[in-house]
């Protein structure tokens, strides 16, 4: 149980529609050690649902089933809702896409981070402030003493996302799920935020699941990549070997990305009939 952090077998997530239940994640199987796994795919490919399902955050009427959903020796499916709450945040935490919507607008940043800490740890009040400031320093926020008193609307997107990261990492989780952590940010800030996640993950020996639609970004920051399409993994490879990917869908996605040294007159567009059975 030491090297496998997360073991998922045949994970299915379904939602009801007028035409019966539709599986949005169709039998996903993967294991994760203390490494960086990237999940890529287009919108609607089920990548975010996979992330949420690991934390059992699929709300009714959605339903999730798996043959196996083991985290660090615990069967997540067997845990009560109460026990699950102890896992969320403390042992597995998740960074959402847009800091604008995931921070509480009427609470100061210091209070929000302190809340994350108080929920999961018993800690003396005087130590809380010190830990919060220390964490903000770790995510490279200048002048943390000033920032703890600010409200989310007073900070920029990049800073907001770093605050989210601080909040998610302060209980020292074993696994971090980052669901498009930088899609709402600029390229220059994007690199900073990802470098930061990368560094923290490496130093603390955490596992990371990076969910994104940006193939190049995932190739840059992950060890292993799962490419998802319509709820299924179409390809799984080492990040280094991404350019050798064989599945037509992966190839199509790769080709559709404009290159820095672009000479093509037209970008190839995914031919959606090439790989679908129907």
């Amino acid at each position, binding site marked *: 149980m030491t090297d496998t952090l997360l073991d998922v077998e045949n994970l299915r997530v379904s939602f009801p529609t007028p035409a019966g239940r539709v599986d949005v994640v169709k039998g996903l199987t993967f294991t994760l050690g203390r490494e960086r796994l990237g999940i890529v795919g287009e919108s609607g490919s089920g990548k975010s649902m996979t992330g949420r399902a690991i934390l059992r955050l699929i709300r009714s009427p959605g339903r999730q089933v798996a043959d196996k959903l083991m985290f660090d020796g615990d069967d997540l499916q067997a845990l009560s809702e109460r026990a699950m709450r102890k896992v969320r945040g403390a042992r597995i935490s998740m960074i959402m896409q847009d800091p604008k919507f995931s921070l509480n607008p009427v609470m100061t940043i210091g209070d929000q981070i302190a809340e994350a800490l108080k929920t999961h740890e018993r800690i003396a009040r005087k130590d809380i402030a010190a830990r919060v400031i220390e964490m903000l320093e770790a995510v490279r926020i200048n002048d943390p003493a000033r920032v703890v008193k600010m409200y989310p609307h007073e900070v920029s997107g990049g800073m907001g996302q770093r605050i989210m990261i601080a909040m998610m990492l302060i209980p020292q989780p074993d696994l971090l799920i980052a669901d498009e952590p930088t899609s709402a940010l600029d390229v220059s800030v994007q690199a900073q935020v990802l470098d930061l996640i990368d560094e923290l993950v490496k130093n603390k020996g955490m596992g990371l699941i990076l969910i994104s639609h940006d193939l190049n970004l995932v190739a840059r920051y992950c060890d292993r990549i799962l490419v998802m399409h319509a709820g299924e993994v179409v390809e799984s490879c080492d990040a280094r070997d991404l350019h050798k990917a064989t599945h037509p869908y992966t190839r199509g996605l790769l080709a559709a990305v404009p290159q820095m040294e672009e000479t093509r007159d037209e970008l190839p*567009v995914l031919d959606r009939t090439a790989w679908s059975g129907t």
Partner: protein
Amino acid sequence: MSAISLKNLDISYGTTKVVQGVNIEVAEGESFALVGESGSGKSTVLKAIAGLAPDWTGEISLLGAPRGHKVDHDFATRCQMVFQDPYGSLHPRKSVDTVLSEPLMIHGLGNRNARVIDMLAAVGLDQRFRFRFPHQMSGGQRQRVAIARALMLEPKVMLLDEPTSALDVSVQAEILNLLKRLRREQGLTYLMVTHNLPVVSFMCDRMAVMNKGRVVEIAPATALHDGSFTDPYTQTLYAASGGNPKYKETL
């Protein structure tokens, strides 16, 4: 004659000056990019040209004619803008048909039915989308509608504010191809704001790099191939976008 000419353009929001001393000449038929990080003032330049940020000084001229500070009826027929977020820029309770007919009605143009049908075909949307509402379409389809709306008045100049940053890579490729084809077919001039340098490499001829409200460098898009930028800020931006040798090794 240049399509867009900006001379000593300063733009303020209230008492804050957000853009200072911008000089840009965009030739007719050219595709020009404004790049920089958020807050660098690149979108504000577009807004000033479109008349959405009226507090500017300096000179803005379009196809040789200077632009005033007021709402300009004729200006709209020559220059149109496409916004970043197709989820936000289309009216949720107006059908595609209404959205596309509106500019024609405002400008008193006839033959609306045929024009709408032609335009849908030109942006690659099936006719069945004509009476749909924005919530019945995907992001890529909505952005096609937004582009169609901008093209209804047959403008010569298009202002594109991050037209693909809200879209997936595969859909982005479709929209970029569409924009490129439209430019070729209709002889349009593009002024495009983006922070995605590979998109510039694909779409544009020249680029201006903005930082803190100033243009720090104007370079040809081919500079993206070898990174031959002179300004240190541009080099940082180039490196952050993956344009450095270390990154290429990993690919």
